[in-house]
């Protein structure tokens, strides 16, 4: 971090975002604060320009009669003016409420009502239309400010106001009220709520997570210090503004570190814009990294054979030594391998990072879901410092991060400075973090459910610390069970491990309250089908393929690999998979076996295939079953099969078994 960054960060603990902004405008007025690709080029605003715009917007909001403590909804893609509106709202002591731009009307209506929104600042006609549609049901919405005037010429609703007009009025207001802005900013207190982020709980209505200036700034400051971000860094803001991740990366951390935020031109151009900007700091959920990797693999399949061979050779070298070199363990790598890696970097990794727009990345993060080993290895081996982090909206994503050089696939890293973590008896991870929420907005019940009386936030995740002090998250706490001998049983952890094999599409693990762990497996028809074709194994369909001895052997290898992984972990060694079967049909959301978001419904499956579960826990080597199925056209039918039940080898644990305390 540069001295400038330190100067701002060390501004004292009692700061707010508007004060941080004023600080940047003072310290580095001419430096670029934000860019937006618009009309084909990257328009840039300096810190002093941003501060000026924010002042004008705040003035405009004042003309709308906006009062301290009130909320403003912000809806749209990542646009500079929407970020500025957040700062303006906060300057006036208000609370910014970013909403998901693709939310359907009902959800939006709920949040508007819950947050008592009176003013909404939105991107364009699409959002205006959505809000106008809600107007009859939500008459309290008295002002809708729209950024893009396109298509808005003939709208006559009195609530509507063009952004330019807002700014114009704001400037006039500021002229009439000199010192207004500064006075308002001065009134702000660090423990004011800065922003409310709605979490879409899996059950029940969304809850507004109130985060204060102090907590967000503390979290952001911790992050910035952890990885050493400064004004020279660049990020691309392309994730929804309503998501805590984007709020932290594109707003809180940017204001703390003073780095530059880049807004892409449109959602279709994100990849091109990423390449043009070449950010130094990048965050994406695992699925984005996964999509990119898939694209890479698909495109490489079209490459000439020579290039493919070169690619495979390079990737093999990278897999062997890339991560070690990245972690600064060059001494572990022989000279020959270092030369090979250098050649690979020249020919493949470097260009690949470049075409992906990742060549300048110093630090990349992912989190929020389990990440597959191949995926993780791929990015790290080609020299992208991809790390995992752990956190929630409620903790401002400030709990654990993997320190550079200490990256392990299946942990989420070490507790960040100022974070305290304890593992409850239930196995639940509980946190005390500087980034902790103030409360759920007007939901004392929910607040009480999530924060223990002694002030720990209950994450709902089960996990434990490994020998190196890294936190390992294994499952949702409510899903974690115990085998009869008391061994920890984390079904989702096991299932994820299985699902990371390309041949396995779905897996369902059983074991809670039973003597041992067993599993159902769905093979991936595409992947295994290919595999079978290459070996000349003929099959007529899924059910047939699933029963082929070669396929079962293939699945067994996967299971035994997972068992070896589990054996390496003292907490989980006892929950190795003893017996398994390959299901004769694909689990299907239409049959109620999966949720619409493709999560397995373990209980439902256990009931439906009770006979098979029972067979797993008997000595049977196969079991006949009839199953109701729904065909694609909606017809129902009955599927009969004789499913083999297979024993899997168990790996010896490298640790003495740990029993529950």
């Amino acid at each position, binding site marked *: 971090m540069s001295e400038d960054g330190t100067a701002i960060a060390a501004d004292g603990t009692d700061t707010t975002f508007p004060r941080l902004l004023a600080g940047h405008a003072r310290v580095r007025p001419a430096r670029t604060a934000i860019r937006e690709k618009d009309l084909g080029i990257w328009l840039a605003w300096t810190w002093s320009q941003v501060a000026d715009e924010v002042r004008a917007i705040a003035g405009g909001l004042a003309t709308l009669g906006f009062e301290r403590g009130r909320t403003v909804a912000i809806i749209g893609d990542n646009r500079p003016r929407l970020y500025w509106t957040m700062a303006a709202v906060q300057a006036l002591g208000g609370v910014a409420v970013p909403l998901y731009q693709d939310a359907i009307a009902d959800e939006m209506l709920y949040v508007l009502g819950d947050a008592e929104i009176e003013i909404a600042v939105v991107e364009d006609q699409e959002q205006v239309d959505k809000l106008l549609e809600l107007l009859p049901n939500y008459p309290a919405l008295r002002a809708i400010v729209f950024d893009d005037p*396109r*298509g808005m010429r003939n709208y006559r609703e009195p609530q509507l106001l063009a952004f330019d007009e807002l700014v114009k009025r704001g400037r006039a207001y500021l002229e009439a009220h000199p010192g207004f802005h500064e006075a308002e900013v001065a009134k702000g207190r660090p423990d004011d709520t800065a922003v409310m982020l709605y979490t879409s709980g899996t059950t029940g209505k969304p809850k507004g997570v109130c985060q204060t200036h102090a907590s967000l700034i503390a979290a952001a400051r911790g992050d910035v210090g952890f990885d050493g971000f400064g004004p020279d860094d660049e990020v691309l803001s392309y994730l929804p503004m309503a998501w805590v991740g984007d709020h932290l990366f594109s707003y809180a951390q940017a204001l703390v570190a003073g780095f530059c935020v880049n807004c892409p031109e449109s959602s*279709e151009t994100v990849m091109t814009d990423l390449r043009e900007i070449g950010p130094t700091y990048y965050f994406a959920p695992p699925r984005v990294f996964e999509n990119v990797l898939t694209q890479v693999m698909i495109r490489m399949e079209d490459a000439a054979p020579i290039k493919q061979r070169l690619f495979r050779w390079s990737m093999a070298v990278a897999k062997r030594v890339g991560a070690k070199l990245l972690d600064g363990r060059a001494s572990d790598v022989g000279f020959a391998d270092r030369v090979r890696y250098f050649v690979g970097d020249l020919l493949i990794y470097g260009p690949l990072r470049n075409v992906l727009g990742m060549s300048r990345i110093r630090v990349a993060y992912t989190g929020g879901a389990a990440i597959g080993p191949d995926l993780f290895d791929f990015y790290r081996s080609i020299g992208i410092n991809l790390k995992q982090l752990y956190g929630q909206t409620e903790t401002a994503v400030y709990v654990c991060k993997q320190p550079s050089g200490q990256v392990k696939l299946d942990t989420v890293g070490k507790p960040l400075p100022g974070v305290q973590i304890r593992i409850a008896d239930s196995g639940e991870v509980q946190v005390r973090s500087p980034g902790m929420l103030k409360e759920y907005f007007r939901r004392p019940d929910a607040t009480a459910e999530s924060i223990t009386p002694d002030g720990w936030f209950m994450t709902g995740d089960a996990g434990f610390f490994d020998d190196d002090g890294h936190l390992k998250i294994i499952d949702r706490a409510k899903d974690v069970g115990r085998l009869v001998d008391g061994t920890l049983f984390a079904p989702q952890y096991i299932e994820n491990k299985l699902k990371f094999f390309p041949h396995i599409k779905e897996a369902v693990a059983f074991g809670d309250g039973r003597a041992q762990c067993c599993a159902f497996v769905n093979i991936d028809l595409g992947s295994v089908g290919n595999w079978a074709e290459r070996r000349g194994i003929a099959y007529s369909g899924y059910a047939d393929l699933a029963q082929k001895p070669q396929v079962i052997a293939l699945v067994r290898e996967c299971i035994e690999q997972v068992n070896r992984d589990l054996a390496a972990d003292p907490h989980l060694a006892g929950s190795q998979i003893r017996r398994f079967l390959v299901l004769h049909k694909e689990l299907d959301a239409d049959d109620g076996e999966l949720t619409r978001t493709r999560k397995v419904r373990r209980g439902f499956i256990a009931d439906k295939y009770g006979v098979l579960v029972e067979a797993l826990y008997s000595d049977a080597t196969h079991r006949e079953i009839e199953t109701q199925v729904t065909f694609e056209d909606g017809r129902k039918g009955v599927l009969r099969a004789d499913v083999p039940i297979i024993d899997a080898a168990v790996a010896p644990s490298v640790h003495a078994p740990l029993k529950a305390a």
Partner: protein
Amino acid sequence: MTEHAHNPGRRIGDTLLSVDNISLAFGGVKALTDISFDVRAHEIRAIIGPNGAGKSSMLNCINGVYRPQQGSITFDGQRFDRMDPHRAARMGIARTFQNIALFKGMSVLDNMMTGRNLKMRTPLLLQALYVGPNRREEIEHRRKVEHIIDFLQIESVRKTPVGRLPYGVQKRVELGRALAAEPRLLLLDEPMAGMNLEEKQDMCRFILDVNDEFGTTIVLIEHDMGVVMDISDRVVVLDYGRKIGDGTPDEVRGNQAVIDAYLGVAH
């Protein structure tokens, strides 16, 4: 498309274009016979009719690609017995073609910049120098064109050669090229031909938005009756080169001659 698109705020003005007694023949084959109609400023005027009714020929007469043997065209108060394409363009008439007529060796951006040809002034020698006035002019027009790119939402393809684009996007680019000329009258020859439903909806919205945002008067030929009835203010119906109907969509729908023509009754 919301109801706002057809907000009463639209201001239909006086006659902008009037076609009087146009007759056109190709070597003895009559393509148009004594056609007259008018187009008012800011309105969307549709020309419909069965295949071979002379619709495209009509557009070609309006902007001077064809020279009619009889009749006259009055645009913006000036009467012409024969229009020529250059004068038409200069007076603010732009058009698109039934079969996409893009410059396929050029990028989207260059195609649209070509649309601004008439607005550019730098002499040849300065173009060879590029720096100075020419660069300023190129940049000024690039900015204008970028607004249209933004308007038509084709940012992601601006530097792609048009030949590589899918059909629907090419149609959009062609509209963009016409818009780049900032026309007062826009002639669209089957802008939605060969499109899927979603593309059609997009195109409809663009046409309405153009009409709405820029006040551009639009004459369009379209086969999709639903579209025509939805977006046009008035409709001319041609059949075998003769005008058989003219009026609002509702009037035309009720017109017996039109019904006969569409049902294929012998005439």
